[in-house]
Structure formats: C-alpha cells, structure tokens
C-alpha cells in the first residue's frame, strides 16, 4: 500500500505559507531562537473561537486548514496530532497565576487550553468532525509515531488521515532550556537555535487530484549502542524498502549547530552520507522535538516542485528519493524515506 501525501500546510520560521516567497527568500535569525511569522488567523477561524486560542493552537489550525483546503477535503477520517511540549503558553500562564494568587480566584481558560490534546480537539471542533482523534506526545518520536499510526489506520481502510506536528517556543521554555546550556550564546556561532512550527499533512492510500509525494517508510531507534549501529540501521532501513544509499538524491540531516550534539551527524557525513548531497534542515526551522514535521514538508515540496529554492545552491534535480534523519541527544534517532510520485 502506498501512502500518498496529498497536501500539506506549514507554519514555520520560513515563509512556508507562501511557496513563491519561500523559494525566493530565506529567513535567518540573529537570536538563538527562531520564531514563526504568523498569518492573519481571521481567514481560518472566526473571532468567537479564536479569542481563547493560544499561539500554538492558532498555528496548528492554520496549518491544518491550509492542508485541508489544498486537498479540497472538509472531513478527514482521522485527525492525529503530535506534540512534545504541548500547549506551553497556557500551561505557564495557569501555573504562574496559581502561584501568584495562592490557588485562589483562578480562571479556567488557560487551564482548559493547556491540555496536550487541545490542538487536535480544536481542529475537530472547527470542522465539526466526529472522526477518530488522537494526540501523541512522545518527545522527538511524537511525529514519527503519529506517522506509524497513520500507516496502520490507512491499512485498516480509514482514510484520508490528517496528521500533523506542532511545538512552540515560549519565553519561559526558552529561559529554562537556556539554563541547561542548550542554546547558542550571544555573539557566538556555535550552539543550537531553538525553533518551532506547525506542519500538517493529508495522507491517503489514494493519490487524490494532486499528490505531493509518497511517504515510503518511517522508523525510530532508541538509544543505539554506538555510531556503527546507527549507520547499519539506516542501511538496513533503506534495504528493507528496496533502496540503497546511492539512490538517495538528498539527505536532510539533523545538524543543529551544536558541536557536541552534531557529533553523530558529522560521523554520518564522514561515513554513509559522504557521497550524497546533504542539507541541514534545522538551519531553516530551528531545533525542536517535532522538527521532522518541517523536514517532511520541505522534502515533499522539493519532490513536487522539482527545483531548488534560490538560496539552496549546488543541488541537482530531478530528485526521486529523499532520506530524512533526526536525532535528539543521540538517544532518539529516526529515519523517514520519501519518494516522488
């Protein structure tokens, strides 16, 4: 069974809602975080609903609605949302108020919008959709596990499936993660840049009118013993799907800009990736647990349009197959394989 990516919708630190602009202009950041430029949400949600929504919920809805509109679908058979951090802004807001007011006179809105399933629930509410609805929250395997579930649902005859990944960076979260020494220090070129985004996909066993790409396979790998095991696993993953490394026209790598974390990626560049064109996708979207959502969107776009953005020089087209690799702290590794239709 083939899994077609029928349409996509993406809010990211790049101009991903406007494909022409995305292709012509690459956005950079001078800070150690990458914030998403946001659309006018009024075209996606009416003001009565939008007034309670936090930023991440609005971003998720905008990406999901864009995806559905592009496919001309109003009611998908399933809605899956992946998020590692959940609704941080509302969680922080409720926590702070709870502490400040010593558990007295608290109001409900921030609490009810803080639950991890809020994005998926609000999409269902907006669409008045009674369909299957699930939220997966497993760190940087969240989106990959949601894709695995998508495949299983499609195999059971449920389709099309709306599946997406959302994560946001808030001041509180950034402040805390900075204290862990995660991010680039001011004036330095070394270190991660925090990212965020909302990426939605309509996946189906049927191609629909204008499919973007085909998701061939996805695999996760927890806590590999060493670099050699990672390399072999990637080769086995490709072989299982009837491919070898030579057939990968592009590899989207998980480089973050943090030397220590990137050791695993540099090892791959020196070994099994050494003959392939590679591109570090986190330089576009920043580092966050569900960044493979952005990578999948990017890969599908390149395979559909079959030309590089003006700022991505030296890459040959046409491209048939793209491999995405992600890892977090070298213990959560994942591989995604996408092919042109």
């Amino acid at each position: 069974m083939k899994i077609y990516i029928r349409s996509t919708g993406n809010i990211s630190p790049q101009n991903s809602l406007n494909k022409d602009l995305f292709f012509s202009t690459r956005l950079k950041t001078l800070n150690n975080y990458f914030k998403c430029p946001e659309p006018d949400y009024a075209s996606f949600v009416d003001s009565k609903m939008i007034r309670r929504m936090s930023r991440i919920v609005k971003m998720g809805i905008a990406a999901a609605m864009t995806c559905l509109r592009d496919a001309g679908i109003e009611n998908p058979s399933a809605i899956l949302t992946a998020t590692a951090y959940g609704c941080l802004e509302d969680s922080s807001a409720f926590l702070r108020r709870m502490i400040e007011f010593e558990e007295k006179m608290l109001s409900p809105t921030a609490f009810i919008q803080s639950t991890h399933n809020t994005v998926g629930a609000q999409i269902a509410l907006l669409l008045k959709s009674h369909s299957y609805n699930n939220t997966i929250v497993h760190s940087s395997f969240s989106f990959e596990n949601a894709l695995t579930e998508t495949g299983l649902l499609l195999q059971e005859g449920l389709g099309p499936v709306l599946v997406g990944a959302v994560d946001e960076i808030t001041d509180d979260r950034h402040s805390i993660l900075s204290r862990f020494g995660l991010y680039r220090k001011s004036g330095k070129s070394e270190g991660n840049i925090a990212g965020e985004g909302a990426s939605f996909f309509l996946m189906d066993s049927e191609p629909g009118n204008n499919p973007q790409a085909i998701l061939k396979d996805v695999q996760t790998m927890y806590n590999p013993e060493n670099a050699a095991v990672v390399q072999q696993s990637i080769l086995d993953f490709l072989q299982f799907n009837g491919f070898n490394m030579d057939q990968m026209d592009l590899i989207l790598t998980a480089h973050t800009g943090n030397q220590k974390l990137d050791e695993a990626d540099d090892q791959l560049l020196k070994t099994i990736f050494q003959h392939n064109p590679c591109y570090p996708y986190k330089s576009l979207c920043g580092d966050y647990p569900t960044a493979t959502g952005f990578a999948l969107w990017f890969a599908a776009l390149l395979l559909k349009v079959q030309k590089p953005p003006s700022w991505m020089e030296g890459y040959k087209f046409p491209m048939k197959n793209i491999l995405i690799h992600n890892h977090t702290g070298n213990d959560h590794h994942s591989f995604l394989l996408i092919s042109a239709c």
Partner: protein
Amino acid sequence: MDNLKEQLKEQIIERLNLKDLKPADIGDDQALFVEGIGLDSIDALELIVLLQQEYNIKLSNAEDGPRVFHSVRTMADYITANNAPAKVST
C-alpha cells in the same frame, strides 16, 4: 450605576478577549449568553472570577449564573444589591 455598567462592559471585553467589540456595542439589556453576544459556559466561569476579583462577591452556586449574568444590567443590579463596594475607577 451607569459608571458601573460602563466599567463592567470594559471588563467583560477585556477578560473574555472580545477584541471585535467596544463597550458601545454591548446594550445594557442585551443577552450575554447563547443569543446576543453569544458567550458560553467557560465565559460564565470567567465572569464568576471577575465578580470575585473586582467586586469581592463570591457566586458559590453556579446555578445562579444564568440569572445574574443574563445582561450587563442584571450583573450591575446584583453587584449593587450585594452591597459590595463597587470599585468604580474614577
């Protein structure tokens, strides 16, 4: 009383994030819930907190809500009747 109603309208707009509305858009007797402004059960809970925080009145029985929060006028009447010092900003 008029000052109180004006103040209530501003507070309702701010607390419920009704960005599209101005105080002049909310009639004194206009229904706040279901029809009219179209508020829902979560908004009712927010207004209960508003009464506590701004007017020192505790509405402990949620069933009184529909009557008290029917309109800005009924809210103002309730605040006045409960002898709470109406914190009207000057």
